C-alpha cells in the first residue's frame, strides 16, 4: 500500500507540473484530470474510498464538462478541425496515457487484493454519513448556504442583458 501511495503521489506531482507548464489549455485540462485521478487513488490507498469516488465524480467529472464546453465553443469549421487534429498529436497524449494507465493498474491491484490500508480499515460510506449528520451537521447546513450564495451570484452574473430583462419583469 505504501508503494501505491507514493507512486500515485509522484504521478500527481508530475501531472500537476505538466498542467502548470503546458501552453495549450486543452492539454492542461488533460493533465489536470490525471492529477485529480491520482489524488483519488491516494484516497483509496489511505482507506477513504468514498472520498476517492467523490473526487473522481465531482472534480474529474467537472473537468470533463469543461472539456465538452471548450470543444462546443470552438467547433465552428475547418480551422477548428485542424486545431483539434493538432491537439491530438502523439506528443500530446502519450505521457497522459502512460500516467493514467499506471493509475488504472494501481486501482485494479486495489480491487484484486484486500490487504489492509494505511490507516487499517476502510472508512465506510455509513461512517461518513453518520459523521456528517452527527457532529458536523452545522457544517453541512452552512455549506448549503455557500451554495445558495454561489447560485444567486451565478444567476446574477450569467443573465444576458439587465436592461432588457428589467423591462420584462
Amino acid at each position, binding site marked *: 500500500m505504501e508503494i501505491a501511495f507514493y507512486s500515485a503521489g509522484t504521478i500527481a506531482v508530475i501531472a500537476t507540473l505538466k498542467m502548470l507548464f503546458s501552453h495549450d489549455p486543452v492539454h492542461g485540462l488533460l493533465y489536470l484530470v490525471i492529477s485529480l485521478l491520482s489524488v483519488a487513488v491516494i484516497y483509496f490507498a489511505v482507506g477513504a474510498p468514498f472520498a476517492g469516488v467523490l473526487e473522481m465524480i465531482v472534480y474529474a467529472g467537472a473537468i470533463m464538462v469543461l472539456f465538452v464546453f471548450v470543444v462546443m465553443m470552438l467547433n465552428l469549421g475547418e480551422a477548428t478541425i485542424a486545431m483539434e487534429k493538432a491537439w491530438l498529436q502523439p506528443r500530446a497524449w502519450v505521457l497522459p496515457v502512460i500516467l493514467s494507465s499506471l493509475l488504472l493498474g494501481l486501482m485494479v491491484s486495489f480491487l484484486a487484493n484486500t490487504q489492509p490500508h494505511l490507516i487499517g480499515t476502510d472508512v465506510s460510506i455509513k461512517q461518513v454519513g453518520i459523521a456528517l449528520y452527527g457532529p458536523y451537521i*452545522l457544517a453541512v447546513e452552512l455549506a448549503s*448556504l455557500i451554495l445558495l450564495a454561489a447560485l444567486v451570484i451565478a444567476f446574477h452574473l450569467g443573465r444576458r442583458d439587465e436592461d432588457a430583462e428589467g423591462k420584462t419583469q
Partner: protein
Amino acid sequence: MTTLTLASLTPLVPVLVMSGSAVLLMLLISFVRSHLLTLLLGLTAVVAAMASMSLVGQNLPAQVTLLIYVDGSTHFYWSMILLSTLVCIGVSHAYVRSAPSFREEWYLLLLVAACGGMVLAASSHMAALFIGLELMSVPLYGLAAFALKNKRSLEAGIKYLVLSATASAFLLFGIALIYAETGSLLLAQWASLPVDSSLGLLGCAMILIGLGFKLSWVPFHTWTPDVYQGAPMPVTAFLATASKVAVVAVLVRLFIQVPLWQDNALAMLLALVGGASILLGNLLAISQTSLKRLLAYSSIAHFGYLMIALTIVAQHGSRSVWVYLATYVIATLSAFAVLSSLTGIKDDTQGDRFEALRGLYQRNPLLALALALSLISMAGIPLTAGFVGKFALFASGVASGQWVLLLLVVAGSAIGIYYYLRVVSVLFQRGGQTLTAGVNVPTLNGILIAALSFMTLAIGIWPDFLI
C-alpha cells in the same frame, strides 16, 4: 456535546436568525420582487439578531457541537459585524435604487456574508473556520462585481476571487500541516503543539498568510486598493469592517489558544508584517487622489497598528484590540455611509475623486461635517473615538515594551494626520466644483450617519463608556 439538540442551539440563535432570514429573503424574491420589502426584511433580520444576542447572553460560554464556541468576546465581535451589516444594508437602499433590475439579491448576499462572518468569529474547529471564511467571502465576490456594466467592478470581483482562493489554499495547507502534527482539527487540541515543532511553525505561518490576506497586511495587501475602488460603496464598507472584524476575532482566538504563536520566529514575523503595513500603508496613502484608494491604504496602516495589541492578547487580554476595533469600525462605517449617500451603483466617482468632493461643505454642510469627523477620528485626534483607540493601543504597547512598533505608530500617525486633513481641507474649499447643486441625503442614510457621528463623539468625550 457532540450531538445536536434543540436546546444546545440556543447560543447560535443570532446566526440562525441571519441565515433563516437569508432563506426567507430568497423565497420572498422568488414570489414578489419588491425593493422596499427586501430592505425592510434585511433590516429586521439584523435588528432581530442583535436583540436575540442580549436574550441568549446569560448562558455563556457555550460549546455548540464541535464546531462553534460562543463566549462574551464572540458577542462583541458579533455585535460589530451586525452593526456593520446594519449600516451597509441601510445605506444600500438609496445606493442600488438606480440599478436597472435585480436589486433584491444584493440584500440576500449581504445577509449571507454577515452570517459567514459570525460563524468565522465563533469557530472552534478548523472545518467551521474554513466554511465560515468561505461563507463570508463567496457572497462578497458577487457583491464586488455586482455592477456588471462597470468594468472596474467586474475587475474588483475577479481580483478578489482569484486572490482569495490563493489565500484559502495557503490557509488549508497550514491547517493540514498542523493537523499532521497534532492529529486534530479542534482548536482546543492545538494547544498541545510542541514549541519546537517545525511543521507547526510552518503551519502557523501559512495560516497567517491565509488570514493576513483578508486583513491586507503588507506582503498580501496588493488587492486592497483595486478592490476597494472597484467594488460598490456599501460593499467596500463591508469589506473594510465586518470581514476584517471576523478575521481579527479568529486570529485572537488562535493567538490565545495556541502557545506556539509566542515562538520568537513567529513573533518577529508578526512584528515585521505589522511594521511594514504601517509604513507602506501610510506612505502610499499620501499620493492618492481617490478617496476609496486612500481609505484602502489607511486601512492597511490601521491593521498594522492593531498588530501591537494582537501579538500580546495571550498575556494582556484582548481589551485594547476591542477598543481599537470598535473605534475603527465606527469611523470607517461613518465615512462610507457619507460616501454612499453621494453616489449610486451606476457611478461611484462622485464620492471617490477629490475633485468631485471639493466644496462639499457648500453643498451639504452636515454631510461634509460628518465625513470630516470620521476622517479626523481615523487620524486619531483627541475628542474623537479614534484617539481613544490609539490611546488603548499605546497603553498596551508600552506595557509590553514594543518600542520599535510604537515608534512606527507615532511616525505613521503623523503622516496620517497630513493626508486625512488634506481631504478635510478639500471638503471645505470653495470653487472648482462643477456640481453646485445641493445634495439630498435619504432619510435612512441621514439617521445612520447621525448615529455613527454621535457614537464617534460620545466615545471620544466619554471614553469610560468603552474602556
